[in-house]
């Protein structure tokens, strides 16, 4: 996993933390993708999930930061930030990535190419700081094939 930002600051768009997202952005600031975990149900959950379906308290845990695209779309309009756009086409790719622990993440996909933009491909987390705001999570191609049977939603 890369702990280094892959982009420089942009002034046009930034992301700010609030009380609910503080722990998440503490993580991204330190180069970690933080997700939720229910230690009773043995479930990992996406960062924006605040309650276990059974009502158990959730903890923040660090993800391995490895995943595979489930679905994606290519925005042909003006990029919200040039750091999120392909330098050649100017298009921005946004996708749903299933991380190895099980949850889905809606994230920008950077450095995309024909070989990497497919289900089953292995991607890894990276971070981009937009403007003066928080570092956000992006995913970049990880290079080797991802084992689909390794994608589980259980901590056990």
């Amino acid at each position, binding site marked *: 996993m890369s702990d280094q930002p892959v982009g420089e600051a942009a002034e046009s768009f930034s992301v700010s933390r609030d009380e609910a997202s503080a722990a998440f952005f503490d993580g991204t600031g330190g180069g970690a993708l933080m997700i939720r975990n229910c230690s009773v149900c043995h479930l990992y959950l996406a960062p924006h999930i605040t309650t276990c379906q059974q009502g158990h308290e959730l903890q923040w845990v660090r993800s391995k930061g490895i995943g595979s695209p489930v679905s994606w779309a290519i925005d*042909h309009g003006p990029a919200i930030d040039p750091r999120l756009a392909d330098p050649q086409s100017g298009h921005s790719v946004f996708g749903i990535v299933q991380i190895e622990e099980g949850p*889905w993440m809606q994230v920008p996909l950077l450095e995309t190419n024909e070989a990497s933009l497919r289900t089953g491909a292995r991607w890894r987390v990276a971070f981009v700081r937009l403007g003066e705001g928080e570092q956000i999570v992006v995913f970049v191609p990880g290079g080797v094939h991802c084992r689909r049977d390794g994608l589980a*939603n259980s901590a056990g």
Partner: protein
Amino acid sequence: VSRRQWARLNPTAQHKDPLTLADHQKSRYIVEPLRLLDCCGLSNGAVAVVLTTHDRSADLPSTPVFPWGISQAHTGYDWDVRSNFGLRTGAAVAGPKAMRMAGVTPADIDVLELYDCYTYTCLVQLEDYGFCERGEAGELAASGALAPGGTVPTSTGGGQLSGYCLWGMTPLAEAISQLRSEGGERQAARHDVALVSGNGGVLDFHASLILGRKPHE
């Protein structure tokens, strides 16, 4: 393409130029895979709907239509491998409930007025409401069933994609016109029962309404 065929019969429609699948394929991408012609436009306009009792409606100058069934579903989605996001919407829950209340099935629906903000949202609703099997909506649309003269007259004013985009009022107003026999050239042959749908959020919220030309027995 089916909606454009309907819109060409609707004097109040915004987009009436002939449209082919080739025209669609030539239109530019907005967010790939959705092209310009997969997306509804924006309209300036207004629709007013008066709700009153059956008794009072008898004295009004306009022909009343009657609610037979209504339901809403705000289903939420798992955000992991168990998710049906994009594959199944609240229509799959609200639709059967509204139809049960009305005592009808998809086979009894004469006109289908869908909330068609994108071509895709029409397709997923056709499957959710049970007008075809899962994964077969594209084939149903390609068969011409949704177009004038088809077996499932859908978005008969051209919908939001070709008619006009007044959000949930677009399908509701068209359903009322059809049930009142005020459709003019686009009047569906059978128009006793209409299904109206409404979507909100990113497929987060859904409402279904069954309207009848006569009071519900």
